[in-house]
C-alpha cells in the first residue's frame, strides 16, 4: 500500500494538469483581490480587509472545489485508462481495493491543495494590502482553522464522488463533463425533488452539496457542527467504498 501511495504522489508531481490548475488558480487568486483593491481606491470606498474577504468569498471557493475535482478526476485518474497505464497498474499484483484506495487518497490530497489556493493566496494578499481586520464575532484563529479544516474535509468528500465517477465513466472527457454537470446541477435537482418529496429535502439538507455553503459562516451553532463534520466524512467513506466495489468488478480494457 505504501508503494501504491508513493507512486500516485510521483504521478501527481508529474501531472501537468495539476500544475496548470495550481498556476492558473494562483494567478486568478492574485488578480481577483487586486481588482477590488484598485476599484475601491479609485471610488474612495474603504478597502476590504482579509477577514471580510475570507467571510465573503470562501463560499465561492465551492466552485473551485467542484471544478478542480472534475478536471483532476479526468486528467489524473481517467486518463490512465486511455493511455493503457491502468492495465499495468491493475496487473501489478495488488488488490483492486488497495489500488483504488491509493488513488483516492492522493487524488483527494491533490484536490485539497487546489481548493486551498484561492483562500490562502487571496486572503494573504488582501491582508498584505489592507490588513486582516476583525471578524464580526469569535476568534480569527478559530475561524481560519475551522474554515480551512472544513474546506479540506468537503474537498475530500467531493474528491471521493469524483473518483467514483472515474471508475464508472473511464473516459477523461466524459468524467470531466459529467462531473461538472453533476456538481452544478445537483443542488437544483435535489431542491426541486425536495419540494415534492420530503425525503429529498432532508437528503439535500444533510448533503455536502448544501453544507459546503456553511464553510464560511462566521459562527456555527454547536448543534450544527456534528453534521458539518460528519457529512463530508461519511460522503468520503461511502463514495470511496462504492468506488472500490465498482473497481473490483471492473474489466480493464
Amino acid at each position, binding site marked *: 500500500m505504501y508503494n501504491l501511495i508513493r507512486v500516485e504522489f510521483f504521478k501527481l508531481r508529474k501531472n501537468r494538469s495539476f500544475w496548470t490548475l495550481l498556476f492558473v488558480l494562483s494567478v486568478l487568486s492574485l488578480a481577483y483581490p487586486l481588482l477590488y483593491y484598485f476599484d475601491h481606491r479609485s471610488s474612495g470606498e474603504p478597502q476590504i480587509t482579509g477577514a471580510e474577504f475570507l467571510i465573503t468569498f470562501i463560499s465561492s471557493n465551492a466552485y473551485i472545489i467542484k471544478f478542480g475535482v472534475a478536471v483532476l478526476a479526468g486528467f489524473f485518474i481517467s486518463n490512465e485508462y486511455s493511455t*493503457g497505464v491502468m492495465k499495468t497498474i491493475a496487473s501489478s499484483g495488488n*488488490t483492486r481495493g488497495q489500488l483504488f484506495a491509493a488513488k483516492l487518497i492522493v487524488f483527494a490530497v491533490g484536490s485539497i491543495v487546489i481548493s486551498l489556493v484561492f483562500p490562502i493566496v487571496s486572503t494573504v494578499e488582501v491582508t498584505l494590502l489592507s490588513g486582516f481586520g476583525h471578524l464580526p464575532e469569535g476568534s480569527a484563529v478559530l475561524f481560519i482553522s475551522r474554515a480551512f479544516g472544513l474546506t479540506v474535509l468537503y474537498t475530500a468528500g467531493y474528491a471521493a464522488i469524483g473518483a467514483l465517477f472515474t471508475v464508472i465513466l473511464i473516459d477523461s472527457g466524459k468524467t470531466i463533463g459529467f462531473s461538472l454537470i453533476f456538481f452544478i446541477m445537483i443542488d437544483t435537482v435535489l431542491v426541486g425533488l425536495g419540494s415534492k418529496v420530503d425525503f429529498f429535502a432532508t437528503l439535500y439538507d444533510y448533503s455536502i452539496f448544501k453544507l459546503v455553503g456553511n464553510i464560511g459562516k462566521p459562527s456555527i451553532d454547536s448543534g450544527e457542527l456534528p453534521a458539518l463534520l460528519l457529512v463530508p466524512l461519511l460522503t468520503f467513506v461511502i463514495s470511496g467504498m462504492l468506488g472500490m466495489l465498482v473497481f473490483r468488478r471492473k*474489466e480493464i480494457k
Partner: protein
Amino acid sequence: MYEYVLKTNQLSKKFKGHTALDKVNLSIRKGSIYGFIGQNGAGKSTLIRIVTGLAFPTDGTVELFGTSEEQALIQARKRVGSIIESPALFPHMTASENLEANRILRGIPGKDCVHRMLQQVGLQGAGKKKAKNFSLGMKQRLGLAIALLGDPEFLILDEPTNGLDPMGVIEMRELLKRLNRELGITILISSHILSELHLMATHYGIIHHGKLLEQLTAEELDEKCQQYVYIKVDNPGKATTVIQNELDTADFEVMQDGSIKLFSRIEQPGKISSALFSAGLEIEKFMPMGEDLESYFTKRIGGNVHV
C-alpha cells in the same frame, strides 16, 4: 515445486451472446517460449487479460506458478511482466520517469535498475526523452523494459514486435531468447509474424474462435509440417488427372495460382516427373518442399486467412 508456470482449466469467457473463450485448457511449461497463435478475435488477448487480472472468467480457473487461490493469484502476478496489446506509458513522462514510476509501483529498491533496463532494451540514450515523442518501436522497447523491471519469472508479450524495423525485430528476438536462455524466464508471446515466432518458440498453442485447437512442441510441429513436392506445369487440370491415374493418389492440393502440392509419392520424384513428362506436360517448376508454421496454422484452422 511447480512444473507449469501457467495452466488454465476449462477457462471460459462469454460476452453478450458471444463466446470469447471456450473451455480452454492451456499449459505453459517452466522455461519455455510459448508462441500463442490465432486470428484477430480468436481469444488470445482475452486469455492474456484474464491471466493478468484485467478481466474475469465466466467459468474455469487460472493457475499461476502452481497456485489458483484468488489472493495467492494476485501475489503471483508480482512475478509476471507483461505488455498487453500496446505498451502502457505515461506520454508526458520521460523514459526514465516511466521506469521510475513502475519501479516504485513494484516496490523495487534502488534506482540503478532504471538505467540497467534502458540499456538492456537499447534505449540508454533516450532516458530523458518524453515517451510521447517516441516512435512505435521505441515505445515497444520501453514497454519491454517496464515489463522486465523486477526480474519477472514469466513474461507475457502481446505483439511485442509491432512497429519495430527489421533490425529491431531481430534484436527483440535475440533479447527474448537470451532472457529465456540465461535467466530462465518463461515467455508467452503472441505475434502475427509467424515466421518470427517460428524462430524462437519452443512450444505453440493454436487458438481459433475461442477454442484451443492444439498445443505442440517445436519438435512436434517440425514432424507435423508435411513434406510435399511443389509442381508447376502448363496444364494443371491435365496434371491432376495424370497424378490420379498414373500415380494412383488423390493426396494433393491445387493452389490458386495453378501450382500443385503433392503430399504422397514424394520419395519417388523420378516417377512423378516422368509420368508428367510422358503425358506431354511442360514442367515449369518441380521441387521438394516442407510446410512452415504459417501453412500449418492455416491448414489447422481450415482456410486461407490472415493471422
